[in-house]
């Protein structure tokens, strides 16, 4: 048990598709193919940035969605597209750690950090299912083996990100040397299923180490963990348990009253098309009640990842009514244009494991 403290939290808005509800695309004021329109995605994220969200997360999966829109653009690329268009908001794609080449993944995230001036994050996903493996001709990874595999991928990524020390590029005209090779290291990672020699092909990311978010059972060396529970009380209880040294982010679905229509009616209308099966706790109700709930929750965790039932409507209500109330109550971390995501999260500068101390 932890006792509640003065909240100093971050808000992460999930912006995938038309919203978390599988029928959200039906009632959206957009054509069904708008999930493929990068300009529409940018519009939603610019609105989130103006409203004062600290970051957006971008869901992804190696499999075609089982319900809702059948299409999904690569999450790292969506985040990269948003990089030059935004200035303060963190960009946190979900990326699979099990079937992606660790070398490519680390480089892609490093490039995302570059195009966003240091605002990249990474939500590690790890399905390990046979269907995901079949896409790349590999075997399933059992649930018991997933944490170890994630830890290996994370360690390989971190070693690659550190493989160029800051200051490795010297441009020394007198000796003709562009690099100081004593500051470029092999990653030399050997894991259970793969090894990576390194060095990275890219210099160290702007943030040094990109903030990594992982679901609770996969918490190996992540900067933040995502915690969840099936209902609101369960989430409060989970929030009060604390064995993780880093930032804890609560996962939460939400539906708010919108344009005179009560939240419960909105869910009923959506469910009439397709039921909403979600493992996450769900808030359904008024902005005032949601603010009260969040003020309590944020006393125990470092932030929330908010999954709006309908992206445009629920994010808009949240931005208009809940977010200002949380800000006024002093519950949110400050946001400064030009901050890196590490700075926004309050993480210390990342030490390079290869640098002489």
């Amino acid at each position, binding site marked *: 048990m932890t006792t509640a403290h003065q909240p100093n939290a971050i808000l992460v808005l999930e912006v995938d598709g038309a919203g978390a509800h599988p029928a959200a695309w039906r009632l959206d004021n957009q054509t069904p193919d708008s999930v493929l329109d*990068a300009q529409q995605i940018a519009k939603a994220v610019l609105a989130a940035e103006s409203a004062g969200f600290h970051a957006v997360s971008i869901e992804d999966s190696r499999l075609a969605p089982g319900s809702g829109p059948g299409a999904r653009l690569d999450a790292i690329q969506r985040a990269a597209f948003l*990089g030059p268009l935004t200035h303060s908001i963190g960009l946190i794609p979900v990326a699979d750690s099990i079937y992606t080449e660790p070398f490519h993944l680390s480089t892609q995230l490093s490039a995302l950090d*570059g195009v966003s001036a240091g605002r990249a994050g990474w939500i590690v996903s790890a399905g390990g299912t046979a269907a995901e493996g079949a896409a790349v001709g590999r075997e399933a990874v059992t649930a018991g083996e997933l944490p170890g595999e994630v830890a290996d991928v994370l360690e390989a990524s971190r070693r690659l990100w550190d493989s160029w020390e800051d200051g490795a590029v010297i441009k020394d005209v007198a000796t003709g040397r562009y690099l100081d*090779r004593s500051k470029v290291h092999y990653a030399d990672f050997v894991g259970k299923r*793969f090894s990576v020699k390194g060095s990275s*092909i890219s210099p160290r990311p702007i943030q040094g180490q990109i903030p990594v978010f992982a679901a609770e059972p996969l918490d190996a060396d992540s900067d933040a963990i995502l915690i969840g529970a099936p209902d609101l009380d369960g989430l409060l209880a989970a929030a009060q348990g604390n064995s993780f040294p880093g930032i804890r982010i609560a996962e939460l679905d939400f539906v708010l009253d919108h344009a005179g229509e009560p939240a419960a009616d909105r869910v009923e209308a959506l469910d009439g098309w397709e039921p909403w099966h979600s493992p996450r706790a769900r808030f359904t109700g008024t902005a005032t009640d949601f603010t009260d709930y969040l003020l309590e929750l944020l006393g125990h965790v470092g932030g929330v990842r908010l999954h709006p039932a309908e992206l445009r409507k629920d994010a808009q209500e949240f931005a208009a009514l809940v977010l200002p109330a949380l800000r006024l109550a002093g519950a949110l971390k400050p946001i400064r244009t030009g901050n890196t995501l590490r700075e926004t999260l309050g993480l210390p500068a990342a030490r390079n494991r290869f640098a002489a101390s």
Partner: protein
Amino acid sequence: MSTRNQPKNLLRLGVFFQGVNSGTVWKTPEAGSQTDFESFRRLIQTAERGIFSAFFLGEGLRLREHLGQIHDLDVAGRPDAQTLLAALAAVTNRIGLVATQNTTYNDPADMAHRLASLDLISGGRAAWNIVTTDNAWTGANFRRGGYLDHADRYTHAEAFVATAKRIWDSWGREDIAANGSQSAWFAGNAPKPVEHTGKHYNISYTSRLPRSAQIRPVLFQAGDSAEGRDFAARQADVIFSAHGGLEAAKVFRADITARTLKAGRPASAVKIMPGSEFILAATESEAEEKHRWVREQQIGPQQALAYLEQFWGESLAGLDPEGPLPDFDPKISESDVTRGSGFQGAKAVELTRSWRESAKDQGLNILEFVRGKSGRVGGSFVGSYARVADTLERYAESGAVDGFNITPWLIPSGLDDIVNHLVPELQERGVYPTHYAGDTLRENLGLEDPTDVAPAVTDEDNTRYEVAV
């Protein structure tokens, strides 16, 4: 002589942002970072101002090494190509976005998905420059290691590309519901998995993305061997060639035309753009002076010795860069001490003997000799804006090439003089576009829609694709 009234073949320009290796000048204060996003933004926006068709990025899979150590003399470090291009899609409107990507160290379903994603994000402007590798040294960074035999490179690449095309062709926007009241997001049947069983992979993958505004990404290819040329003739839309001289370009065009027709495609289906370098100024003498300066910047004493070391196979640190070439033979038979360079496998003894003769005959020291050897393989255009424009006009009239893929030797300002001075000269001569022809890369390269878009694959058809991916 042609007259100004007749329509002429239009040349197209692409820019290959290589950024690394010895071609990129870094010893001058104007040289900016080749990894900062702002350098990319500046260069691509300049290219778009100059109606360039395409912006290319290379791919790095392992940092270069020389004599067993990280190569420290040349520019090194590059960001992931597709991630960067997705960001550049946000700050450009028409220019094509070309990612060089290796078929050996990527998974077909993954690569097809990421390229389709880039194609949709950019509104139909993506392309894939297909390259192959087979060495275990590069493989040390990847799960599968060095699994591929050299002889299998193109068979593997072709099966990879065929699988990617099937994934891209699985479904289209016409399959998406027109509005939210239809029974499902897919208006028709949901797409079927693309199945493939082969020597290197067994794949079952259902595409998550529809065809793009240009149907699928444009395919570039650069391999120059007979196998590489046949591969391009069967699969590619554009060849990024190494034949920039006018006569060589004509011979190459004739060869590619024959191979393309033999592959059952119209000759116009494959465009040719030689990789090239432009060193331009207002006058001929200024351009010559600039040429000399660029070579001095690219090849200093250390770079000259390192160049020779690749072929001699040992450190030549004791030699005077302003003295003659080594008077002894290499102790290696094939060059391989610089990993990640294009010179692996050159016959060292024969080559270096001929160099020694040639340098002696011309009275060149090491530095002068190596500087004379550098420059783009495809071709260097050195001269005044007007004279180079005249030269390019002859290329346009000859039909030998469809354009050029320019590697700037200076980042990020290396296209400024080309766009500010050469492009208007070409437009005046009627051999260069004055506006973008359309919104997609395919349109802007003058390519037709692909004719081999696969019909929907049924389960029974799967046996047709028993190929060697």
